[in-house]
């Protein structure tokens, strides 16, 4: 009987390296704590306004940290015994999450002002959630990934619950309902995910992805297949792939719009980051199987999302189904099992993030004008505010994949990658996806139609609630336009990031 296990030898340098690689995350967390503390000190809520800017600055600092790491030669380093990987892939996603968080925080002012309640928690939670997302992107080990995922899930559940406007206005209690739905389903999916991880651990005896892929070779055993299934189910929930997508519309609708925006981009992108990393990094030997699974899920997902979106009248639900559809497209990229597919998915996520944020920022602004976020409230927006109508039109067209916006390019890269995979099934899937894109133009077009082709019922002009909101909107719209036409550096980044998977 041994007395104890030999402990791994961890030097201070190792820890320091690890903390260095964690710097962006740490900056985010530190900012969150600073904001929390300031919030506790200040009692008069009006003076809390700078909290937003502090948060944004902190996040910018984190972005700067990312840039420093990028330029400082830290790319590709791992730390904590391989638990943490700061490769280009991770940095890509970390930067994306930080930008998304900045935009959400900047755009959330209307919302926060109207609450007239503690606003700091919102920023804090967004930032903590962001830290979870960033850790998901760079986690290279099941436990870390799992815990980071839980950080995200719990903070998102919090964000879903955060909308108290409904309660104040007596319109119903949608946000808590959204929160409980998200929370319970998230817990269910987590348990399934854990079961899958347990099986994976059982088969390989390892938890780091590198070790798993080293052990896992040859034809998969039933346990490996069951494990893959459960991982797909657990992570499919995060990205809202059918049939694990049912929470999405309800939660999107119920949550406060900025929270929804964060939901739609953050959780989804991180889910894809994790899927890309686990399936490409740990399970390449099972790729024929999971490729087929992702292909089937892609088909179901985009079909379901599109068809139900056709009959929606609430714009947030519409956006939810639209997001499901986009997940379906991206799953095609996963189904290619190729580096091109991965990089295309990454670029798609970039495109989707900016586009969706642009749309949601306008929906946030419109929350004051469109009761219950009904599409009917957007009637004649082009006359009430041509710029907002133009912005939303641009965003929706980008989502529909109409040039010259980034969504078009993203979709093309993705489908090109799928065609290049050279499988007939994928080609058919691409045709179907393109038909689905055509269909999607119908429901996006309905919003455009309401904005442009109908006379407004109310003549009052529509304005953004604050400067920061306008700034966030402008920034995301610039992204929507520029990343498409001048998207090459970003696509190159995605391509180089996906090379870590070695295929």
């Amino acid at each position, binding site marked *: 009987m041994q007395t104890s296990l030999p402990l791994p030898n961890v030097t201070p340098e190792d820890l320091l390296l690890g903390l260095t690689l964690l710097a962006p995350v740490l900056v985010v967390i530190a900012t969150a704590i600073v904001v929390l503390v300031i919030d506790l000190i200040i009692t008069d809520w009006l003076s809390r306004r700078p909290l937003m800017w502090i948060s944004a600055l902190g996040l910018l600092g984190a972005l700067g940290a990312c840039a420093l790491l990028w330029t400082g030669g830290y790319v590709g380093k791992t730390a904590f015994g391989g638990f943490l990987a700061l490769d280009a892939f991770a940095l890509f996603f970390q930067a994306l999450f930080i930008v998304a968080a900045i935009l959400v925080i900047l755009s959330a002012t209307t919302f926060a002002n109207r609450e007239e309640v503690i606003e700091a928690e919102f920023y804090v939670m967004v930032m903590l959630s962001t830290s979870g997302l960033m850790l998901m992107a760079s986690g290279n080990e099941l436990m870390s990934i799992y815990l980071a995922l839980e950080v995200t899930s719990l903070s998102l559940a919090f964000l879903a619950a955060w909308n108290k406007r409904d309660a104040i206005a007596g319109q119903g209690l949608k946000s808590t309902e959204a929160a409980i739905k998200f929370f319970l389903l998230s817990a269910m999916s987590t348990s399934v995910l854990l079961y899958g991880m347990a099986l994976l651990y059982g088969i390989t005896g390892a938890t780091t992805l590198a070790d798993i892929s080293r052990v896992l070779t040859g034809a998969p055993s039933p346990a490996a297949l069951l494990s893959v299934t459960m991982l797909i189910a657990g992570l499919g929930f995060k990205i809202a792939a059918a049939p694990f997508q049912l929470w999405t519309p309800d939660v999107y609708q119920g949550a406060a719009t900025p929270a929804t925006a964060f939901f739609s981009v953050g959780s989804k992108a991180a889910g894809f980051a994790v899927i890309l990393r686990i399936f490409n990094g740990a399970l390449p030997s099972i790729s024929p199987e999971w490729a087929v699974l992702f292909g089937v899920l892609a088909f179901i997902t985009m079909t379901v999302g599109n068809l139900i979106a056709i009959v929606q009248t609430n714009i947030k639900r519409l956006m939810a189904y639209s997001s499901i559809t986009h997940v379906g497209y991206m799953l095609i990229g996963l189904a290619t099992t190729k580096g091109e597919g991965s990089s295309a998915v990454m670029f798609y996520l970039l495109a989707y993030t900016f586009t969706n944020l642009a749309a949601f920022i306008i929906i946030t602004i419109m929350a004051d004008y469109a009761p219950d976020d009904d599409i009917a409230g957007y009637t004649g927006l082009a006359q009430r505010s041509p710029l907002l109508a133009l912005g939303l039109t641009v965003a929706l067209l980008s989502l529909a994949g109409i040039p*010259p916006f980034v969504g*078009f390019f993203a979709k093309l890269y993705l489908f090109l990658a799928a*065609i290049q995979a050279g499988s007939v099934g994928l080609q058919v899937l691409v045709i179907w996806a393109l*038909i689905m894109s055509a269909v999607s133009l119908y429901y996006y*077009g309905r919003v455009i139609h309401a904005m442009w*082709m109908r006379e407004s019922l109310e003549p009052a002009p529509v304005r953004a609630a604050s400067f920061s909101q306008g700034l966030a909107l402008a920034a995301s719209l610039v992204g929507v336009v520029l990343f498409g036409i001048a998207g090459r550096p970003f696509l190159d980044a995605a391509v180089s990031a996906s090379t870590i998977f070695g295929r």
Partner: protein
Amino acid sequence: MIALSPDLGRVILQLVLWLPLVGALVVALIGNGRSATLTGEAPLVTSRAWRWATGFAAITFILAAWLFLGFDTSHASNYQFETRLSWLPFGSDYRIGVDGLSMPLVALNALLSLSAIAGSWRITTRQSTYFSLFLILESAVFGVFTASDLFLFFLFWELELIPMFLIIGIWGGARREYAAFKFILYTVAGSAFMLVGIFLIAYFGPRPLTFGIPEIAQFNFSQYGTGIASLGGLAFILLFIGFAVKVPVFPFHTWLPDAHVEAPTAGSVMLAGVLLKMGGYGLLRLCVTLLPQAAHDWQWLLIILAVVNSIYGALVALAQTDLKKMIANSSISHMGYVILGIAALTQVGFHGALLVMLAHGLYSGLLFSMVGLVYDRTHTREVSAMSGLAARMPFIATVFMLAGLASLGLPGLAGFVAEFTTFIGAYGVFPLATILCVCTIAITAGYILWRLGAVLFGPLSPEWATLGDAIWRERIAVGMLAAATLLIGVVPSVVADMSAGGVAPIANAVAQGGQR
């Protein structure tokens, strides 16, 4: 015809391509410039948006004309004034150039856009949006005709949809929303197939991966097998579906009558005059050029569709009592000639198809303009509601008749030149089909003279006794088109010199493709 240095030409081509877009921005920013509350009789004042938009369109037209005249017709089969910038990864570059195939269509677009914009001065609601959209549309169409990269081509192809969608949907007729959605969904569904075709071509095409049309045109796809079930055949039919929706080819044409009827006049002009040509251009530039072997394999389908299109369109047009519906269906019929010319897969057939596109662009644009002018006055397009209008509006009647005569293929006008070339080109390959198509010109004459006559001739009903003729702005707007129709009809060499060279490489490729 006039010397134009390549460098200057390059700059002018870029200007032609992007100036309308700049114009769109400017027009959007300067606003309407007059209140939109004018009521009653047609206002004779113009809006600032109109003036600026017309100015931009006119400058663009002048530049395009300069380019047209400076085009070296003796090397019409090569891309000229080409600009190439490295753009996207995986082999897609920003490549803009014109050859003998695209140059006439560029000029056509410049002319029709100017005419459509200048003729739209009666628009009273949201002028700046309206004119911006038209200018965006113009740029997009230029892009389609000048891109020599598949990706860029597709980008511009899709870009054109939204302006047209909004133009139909905002300023259209009673069922404008239905028509707008039908238009855009139909086209996007078609381009879905087209995109897959483009991907297949690029993916199985030359290495390293490229989207450049000239490079892919050098590639021999028949190494993957021949026949309609081969890769080439599959890619061809995928591309074809995309273009067939646009052309439109039976049975993908049902969006067209709705879109034409509901669109505002200028929208119909652009739709019939230019947008349909994108389909024919795509067939020539992509389907046939890149996949000559597959074109041979699918020839039977093309020829069947050509005959069906021209006869079906003509017969349906015969049954229409709404002028716009009639012209819309006549477009279907005439685009059948385009398909006929392409289906022949000969130099003369291609040439004819291109000429039909140009001619139809002019006279269908003119016809829609004239319907618009009549509609502005009578507020109806129903044939039975009108009679004897020629007495009150001799200019409109004259030009209307001119357009109608061009449409029915009267020599001396553009339609005859084009149709004759098509027919002689197609007859050698498909005698029976050609004869069937020739027979439709009698039907065309039937509905054109019948309906136009009923509107313009006969006793003037007192209801219309106070209507006025076209004013000078309108006269210039339609006069340009009429003059061009006449010019091409009398002196076809103004375009034929370059278009003959433009289609030559395609005919060459097909001839070689057939031997492969």
